């Protein structure tokens, strides 16, 4: 197991953690902004207006069929010039993850809203509740329950996908790892194994609790 000492070098772990923080930051901001975007998109998708529907379909299908890496390239190399946008790599990542997260979450919101039994609306009507009261007190709380487990899963996927940011040159955990591997090439030739191994587990440690939370939520609310 020679080479493992690389991990004990001063600065190695703190720097990897800093890199991980970039990863988590990108994912956090993306998830945070995706939520309102997703709610709006989901609501738009339930509208009957054919134009809105068609637009939403195209948006969702395009985002879904393109690999995220391809979307990142489109945003990084394409957007900046088409729209004269000075979007750096981090910005491009956040933008793509918001568009992607918004689409996926939107579809979840649509599904959740449509899965509420009609009789819930009818009971509310008969009890005299106004449309807004029905939505805010009856429908939304139920939709959120149905939504949460899948949304947490989506967050996990976004965290995992932030790994692609390195391919645009964002200095996140993988890039930091590569810098460390490069800087220590002579002393620790097998550092590659250890650094990539540690990064593998860092992702696991960030994502796993999210997976567990999602599963718990699913179990807790599955009987409604």
């Amino acid at each position: 197991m020679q080479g493992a000492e690389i991990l004990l070098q001063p600065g190695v772990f703190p720097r990897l953690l800093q890199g991980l923080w970039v990863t988590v930051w990108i994912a956090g901001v993306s998830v945070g902004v995706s939520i309102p975007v997703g709610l709006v998109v989901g609501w738009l998708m339930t509208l009957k207006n054919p134009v809105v529907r068609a637009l939403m379909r195209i948006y969702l299908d395009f985002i879904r069929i393109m690999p995220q890496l391809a979307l990142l390239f489109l945003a990084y190399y394409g957007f900046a010039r088409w729209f004269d946008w000075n979007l750096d790599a981090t910005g491009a990542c956040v933008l793509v993850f918001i568009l992607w997260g918004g689409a996926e979450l939107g579809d979840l919101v649509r599904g959740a809203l449509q899965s509420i039994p009609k009789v819930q609306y009818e009971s509310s009507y008969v009890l005299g509740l106004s449309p807004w009261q029905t939505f805010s007190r009856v429908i939304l709380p139920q939709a959120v329950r149905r939504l949460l487990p899948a949304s947490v899963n989506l967050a996990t996927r976004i965290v995992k996908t932030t790994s692609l940011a390195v391919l645009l040159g964002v200095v996140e955990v993988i890039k930091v790892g590569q810098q460390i591997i490069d800087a220590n090439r002579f002393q620790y030739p097998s550092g590659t194994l250890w650094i990539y191994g540690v990064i593998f587990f860092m992702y696991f440690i960030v994502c796993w609790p999210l997976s567990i939370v999602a599963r718990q939520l699913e179990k807790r609310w599955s009987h409604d």
Partner: protein
Amino acid sequence: MTAFETSGPSPTSDCKGFEVRHLVKQYANADKPVLNDISFKVEHGTVLVVLGPSGSGKSTLLRTIAGLEPIQGGTISINDQVIDEGRPGTEKAGRSNRSSALRTRIGMVFQSYDLFPNKTVLGNITMAPLLVQKRDKAQVEAEALKLLDRVGLADRKDAWPHELSGGQRQRVAICRALILHPEVLLLDEITAALDPEMVREVLDVVLELAKAGQTMLIVTHEMQFARAIADHVILLDGGHIVEESHDAHAFFAHPQTERARQFLHTFEFE
């Protein structure tokens, strides 16, 4: 289980009852009405049982009365006050456009267990009086507890709907409707999805309600129960009333029309 002495009709009503006249209901994309020229009157404090084969329009009738469907002809009135009027061309419209206050004068319980899963038993019952009628919280909760006690569920007030059996849920749903003091209560096959023992516990509550003078329109397939509770029966078929009787016992013993005989025969063996 005690009788519902204090609930039932609100003291201000002038005891005229509930009436439907020449009601016509047509769904969008249908070539003919589901309900055609339906008229009947339910005296205050009496129970009307609506019978009929599947698809005859029983649920639709209750839904139009509750305001869940706009009507295309005729009127629906409580105590001589018209609350809904037929407007042609509304086939595609959503609900009737009744005010909240008007809606609370008619209660309804559905076949499916339709409690709000995100509220406790007490939350389900107190929601409408607090939100819609803006009544005092302490008073509403006290009344809710009294109602729960009457249906034998006082100890389950903090339970969540998913922790209740089907029969318990339906009893809570009845309390949720009763707390608004509806002048008419509509029950649409509320025991159809229940096990026999639960059927009994729910129907016992309804029988007590009838004794306490609650005006009700009931759709049911439990013929024994119908016979026991009905003051007044109508038999629907193909959107028409094929037989109406103000003597329930006579109706079940000696139906006048061939259609009614045939229908009642479905529930008898040998």
